[in-house]
């Protein structure tokens, strides 16, 4: 059994850990609110962008000449996966959930004999993937120095992707991120961005006749690269909200566990203190008796 001194030390160390996790929880809660707000504020832009593109792409008459970003290269041999993770740990299953999702997708790709290329955004994803997929990772981007997700960063990632697409380095591009549902639930998502998937197109009943200025192709050509950045930005916003939410609940759990541990240790400490006193008493009494 541990001595009284050891127990005392452990109790105080658990208590200070609890203080840290509590503080982290508070910080995460404050950041979560901000991240959530900006995620909500960012939504109209990506929704509108999506709408316009849907309207446009349903108007494109000949699929043959449609921009490649929309229709694809006609091949699906090389897959590019963009894995968006956090730059920091201590946020529960946040990073590993995305990685798990991505890994199962990677498995599927390599099982079907296609080539896999990976871009990681955020250092945690890189750390977790580099052991298994070192040779597949072609780029590792991290925005450690920017405090919040901003469009400028997303645009940078988007430009890299488009440049690679134009150099025919891949055929299909999928991004992985966590969608923020609520504080305790984040759903890892995979979303194909090149070629653009337009499943909702059929459901759109109102096929408006738009006037285009300049012509459709030129607008689409201008719009699609922007859409890539927008989708990545959306993913980054969702991700940052998810990260904070995940961290908050992880730290909440940690604080609670630390509390339980302190209780248990305190009881143990008191018991052994009592035992020590009783032992001493018995020693004194039996010493007196023998006289």
């Amino acid at each position, binding site marked *: 059994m541990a001595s009284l001194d050891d127990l005392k030390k452990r109790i105080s160390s658990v208590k200070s850990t609890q203080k840290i996790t509590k503080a982290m929880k508070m910080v995460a809660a404050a950041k979560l609110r901000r991240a959530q707000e900006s995620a909500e504020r960012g939504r109209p832009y990506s929704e509108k962008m999506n709408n*316009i593109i849907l309207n446009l792409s349903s108007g494109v008459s000949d699929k043959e000449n449609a921009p490649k970003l929309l229709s694809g290269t006609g091949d699906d041999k090389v897959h590019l996966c963009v894995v968006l993770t956090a730059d920091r740990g201590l946020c529960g299953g946040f990073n590993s959930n995305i990685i798990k999702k991505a890994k199962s997708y990677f498995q599927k790709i390599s099982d079907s004999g296609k080539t896999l290329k990976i871009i990681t955004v955020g250092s945690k994803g890189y750390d977790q993937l580099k052991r298994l997929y070192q040779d597949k990772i072609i780029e590792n981007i991290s925005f450690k120095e920017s405090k919040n997700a901003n469009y400028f960063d997303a645009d940078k990632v988007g430009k890299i992707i488009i440049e690679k697409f134009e150099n025919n380095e891949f055929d299909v591009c999928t991004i992985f991120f966590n969608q923020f549902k609520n504080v305790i639930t984040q759903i890892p998502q995979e979303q194909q961005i090149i070629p653009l998937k337009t499943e909702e197109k059929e459901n759109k009943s109102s096929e408006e006749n738009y006037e285009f200025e300049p012509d459709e192709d030129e607008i689409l050509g201008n719009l699609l690269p922007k859409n890539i950045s927008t989708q990545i930005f959306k993913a980054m916003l969702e991700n940052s909200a998810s990260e904070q939410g995940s961290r908050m609940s992880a730290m909440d759990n940690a604080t609670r566990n630390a509390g339980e541990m302190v209780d248990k240790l305190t009881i143990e400490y008191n018991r052994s203190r009592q035992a020590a006193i009783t032992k001493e008493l018995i020693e004194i009494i039996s010493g007196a008796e023998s006289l």
Partner: protein
Amino acid sequence: MSEGFNIDIVNPEKSFLSKENVSEVVVPAYEGEMGILKDHIPIISFLKPGIIKVISGSEEHNFYVEDGIVEFKDNTLSILTSSIFDIKNVNKKHVSDEIQEAEKELNKDDLNDQKRFLLNHKVEILKSISIN
């Protein structure tokens, strides 16, 4: 029925401006300035650097945009842009920085005509802002 239409200006980070009952909006569309009134037919176009003029009644608001997409549909004008600011409370320093940057860009050799044209245009507009 109201006399005007709705306008939504959004940038990626937030909704920049949302206004109802606007009587006229002039946007710097790609092929020239374009005035939009109520019941315009649905149109999609993109913007070049210039001034968006939002007129509602006797009020007039001016915004500078660099690029973007406009969509008009069902009497709602949506403008998506990544860079926009209000001319009234503009930061002079910011404008002159932008001008410098654009001019630096202009001096590069690998520009195509279209880009050169857009940049020249941008510089012109920005200079006219900084004078006022």
